[in-house]
């Protein structure tokens, strides 16, 4: 290493130190929002793989209910977004249909659909972010993995609800194809789990509210909601997702989430 590069290294180190100490003293709301998101992601790292059963209850304004059932498996990858497989069990006409997603931190996700009647695997566009997942109030982008890179952040305030402290953070989707202009999220200060999200549509009107509940702790470290409720304020419709049979450490690897394994999904 020559002297010049040493000098540059030294200068960079000094600059970094200066900036870090500056951050501690006066963190901007944007930096604090980002720091909360990074901390939440750090705490949730290392879960490996998981599988669960999902029941989806669709409600119309007048209370008429319909149910959907599916199973989901997911695996964490080292350098990129999670990989997941959703297998549909009910209603009967879509039974056996399966969806494979390779999510990416920045690039659009890769998605394939398996159609059991034709034995056909179709690569599908992941551009349909704002589209309804299974005609529910959950959009595809609400179901995808929540990578830090998918939003820009701004810390708004602290809030105490029913004796628990929350960070209230504004998230703005970085993807212009998102159906939302902003989201207001409530992050639990003790566990960093996401408790509630308000979604604002392209006209910046409050569109939906997501509430997570019935949290359980898995592997002594990872909080997962047993229930998620999505209320649409414009249509009056709502969807409840109930998770059961959560299991971790099933020995799943990235190899279990390929186009070849999608064809075998049952």
């Amino acid at each position, binding site marked *: 290493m020559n002297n010049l590069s040493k000098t540059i290294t030294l200068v960079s180190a000094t600059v970094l130190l200066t900036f870090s100490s500056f951050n501690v003293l006066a963190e901007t709301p944007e930096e604090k929002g980002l720091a909360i998101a990074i901390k939440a992601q750090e705490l949730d790292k290392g879960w490996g793989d998981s599988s669960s059963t999902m029941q989806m209850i669709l409600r119309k304004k007048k209370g008429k209910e*319909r149910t959907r059932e599916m199973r989901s498996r997911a695996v964490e990858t080292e350098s990129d977004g999670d990989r997941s497989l959703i297998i549909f069990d009910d209603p009967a006409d879509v039974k056996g249909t399966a969806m494979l997603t390779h999510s990416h931190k920045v690039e659009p996700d890769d998605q394939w659909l398996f159609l059991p009647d034709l034995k056909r695997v179709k*690569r599908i*566009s992941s551009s349909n972010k704002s589209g309804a997942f299974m005609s529910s109030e959950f959009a595809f982008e609400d179901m995808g993995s929540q990578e830090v890179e998918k939003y820009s952040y701004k810390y708004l305030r602290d809030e105490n609800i029913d004796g628990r402290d929350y960070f209230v953070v504004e998230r703005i989707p970085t993807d212009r194809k998102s159906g939302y202009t902003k989201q207001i999220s409530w992050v639990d200060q003790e566990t960093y789990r996401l408790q509630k999200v308000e979604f604002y549509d392209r006209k910046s009107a409050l569109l939906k509210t997501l509430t997570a509940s019935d949290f359980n702790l898995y592997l002594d470290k990872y909080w997962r909601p047993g229930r998620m409720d999505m209320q649409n304020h414009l249509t009056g419709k709502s969807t409840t997702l109930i998770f059961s049979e959560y299991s971790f450490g099933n020995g799943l690897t990235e190899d279990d989430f390929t186009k070849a394994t999608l064809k075998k999904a049952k």
Partner: protein
Amino acid sequence: MKNSRLSCLGRNLSNFKPCITVFAYKTALIAVLGIGLFSTFGINTSHAAEWDSELSIEVRSFLNDSQRANQKNENLSLSFETEFYHDWDDDNQRFVIKPFARVDSLDDERTHFDLREFYWRKTFENQNLDLKIGLSKVFWGVTESVHLVDIINQNDGVENLDGEDKLGQPMINLSLDKDWGIVDFFILPYFRERTFPSLDGRPSLPFRIDIDNPVYISGAEEEHVDLALRYAQVFGDWDVGISHFSGTSREPLLVPSITATGLSLTPFYDQIEQSSLDLQATLENWLWKLELISNQGTLQDRYTALAGGFEYSFYDLKESGIDLGFIAEYLFDDRKEQSTSTFQNDIFIGGRFAFNDENNADLLAGIVYDLDNQTQFFSLEASMRIGQSMKVNLESRFFSVDDSSDAFFAIKDDDYIGINLTRFF
């Protein structure tokens, strides 16, 4: 012809007496129906072993008067399919059996039975290797209007014009799934003849097809062992497949011959070498697709055929929740007029609506237009769910043909509208 149990499958059995009696056939049908009904009681609801069945009633109404004495303008048909599967050995082994049967009011050829799937599969997890032995179904390809590359399974031609119903193909399949791609090797020890509607069925050709006496260029006839190899990989936005097939052509030439009962067409199965490429680029709202085949027969000269185009989707049209896909594909076959395919210089234009409603309603409508002779083939398919365990399909095919040399000319009066109601158990 050799008498083999397998050759009974997918064939009109009453016309093929040496093989299996009508009585045995009916018994099998009743057994299948019985098993299906039994399954409705839910003998097992775990995911390691399961029965799934569907019973369909189909009504087709033909808009033009029939051309032949036994044909009618209305057709009623009942079909039943049931699947049993069982996974064990940590899901590393699977057994599947999937019988299918149809009873048709008009067409004796369409009244038939087939084992769509009947196989055992073992996964060697450490090697990322799968071994599958038995009857199974494989789909290759990407385009919507035709399926050029898809060659492993024979068409169950009595079911539908679209070539998407397939007969179970006996196979030994080794599948290797690695980071650098998926390699599939197939040994296909037994050939399944294409099924054809009878003279009474609609749509059908105006000549008797002598399905009991097919001619093979290979001395091994239907026991010729066919081989196939495929490599598939995903390169970012691109899904690519390269395949080669060596064996009995799935598409027979129909050779006119004079028999005691008059003129009939004899299915003639050549030996072919077919290489193919299929690729799709998925670029945001655009899907770009190409299927290309190069086929060399023992008797037929080398020819090239392709289908290529795009599908562009408008998602959530005017915030209605509806997705609209616009599809355009160009179809080419350099055999020109000798082409057994009618799609030698045609374009397909279509639209796909996905309503994304609670009944999962969708609609696909399209037209194939022949740029050489202006023949038009119009097709519409729509479906929606009814309640939790029923589905209704609407299907319509219309033909507009002036050129008597076009393959569609023979069925130009067989325009129809069909409704299919399916109950899932």
